[in-house]
């Protein structure tokens, strides 16, 4: 692709496209997850504490992700995936599901999305 076609900052434009695609992807992953596990048990809560009793009552697949976030404090889906040995896309879906449930918060920094349970726990 020629530089003139994309304007002065071709890389910047491409980055933007990629960023948007990734966000779109995440949204699709969340929708797939919601579909898979049924909407009933996923009532949105705000600021629900991710304490051990909550961890105990979670379905196994979410508990693994939530426990890893507790250990890390703050992490991206990629970093969680490295520890759980599951695919990044899977972890991304679970993390977003935990955000919907109110247990995690999500913060974007550039292209990366960071997840954490409690601001105070971040290092």
């Amino acid at each position, binding site marked *: 692709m020629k530089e003139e076609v994309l304007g002065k900052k071709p890389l910047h434009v491409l980055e933007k496209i990629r960023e948007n695609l990734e966000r779109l992807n995440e949204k699709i992953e969340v929708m797939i997850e919601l579909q898979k596990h049924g909407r009933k048990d996923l009532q949105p809560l705000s600021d629900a504490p991710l304490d051990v009793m909550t961890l105990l009552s979670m379905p*196994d697949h979410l*508990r693994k992700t939530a426990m890893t976030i507790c250990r890390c404090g703050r992490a991206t889906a990629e970093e969680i995936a490295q520890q759980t040995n599951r695919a990044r896309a899977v972890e991304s879906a679970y993390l977003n599901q935990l955000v919907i449930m109110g247990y995690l918060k999500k913060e974007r920094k550039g292209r990366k999305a960071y997840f954490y349970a409690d601001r105070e726990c971040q290092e």
Partner: protein
Amino acid sequence: MSRVKVTMGKIIAVHSYKGGTGKTLLSVNLAAALAKHGKKVCLFDLDFRAPSLFAVFNVENAECWLNDYLNGTCEISKVLIDLNGRIYGDGEFFVGFANPATEAIRDMTAKDRKWEMRALGRLLSLRNTLLNGKEFDYLIFDTSPGLQYSSINAIVTADLVVVATTSDRSDVDGTRRMLNELYNLFEKKTGLVLNKVLDSASKSKKGDMQDKIKAIYQVPMLGLVPCFCEILRAEGNLIFVQDKPDHPFTKIVDEIAKKIESNEIN
């Protein structure tokens, strides 16, 4: 992002379903045995409902309690008390005490879920500050019995859960349920110590007994402790591993410590 570092140090939670199974006796002696084997060890009293380590070690007052660290009002370094004078060996021995004041116990039992979540975060960060930062080899958590916040926080934080149990029917049932519904869910390595075993039973059919235990609980056995009258007679005034080096109980705890050191529990 704080990455979980690969570390040699380990966190061990000593837990049980019922009270009076010998958790504190086991925690104290296990910590002392590891220190005598040359390890740098810190023993923590996580039984905030019935603190007992301050009495075991005759400590009247502490500058900071473990309660203060979990409340976020002091650093962990201020909680640790150097007790190398009490336990002689090649290693190092520290203790973090729970505040025994009635007011402190009341305060700890009235914490909300958000506080418990932060307490878990603070316990988890000990891996970084003490195991990585201060090069401790073992942190040992003496917990409250049963399913309660402080104990489950300790279990989630630990690499290995040592479960003290007895032959009492209600203890056997409860322990078995806890193994299935608590430790397994958190994917924790677990080792069992069967305490207060009748002397005759432990001597005559040790192999049979171990097989039976393994069949009941489906987890590895770390040790079998006969009922010793000397332990009762000492009225909690002795740390057997230190004060009675030739006592059979000391030898059993030594063996348990060696199993833990050699990573035998998998």
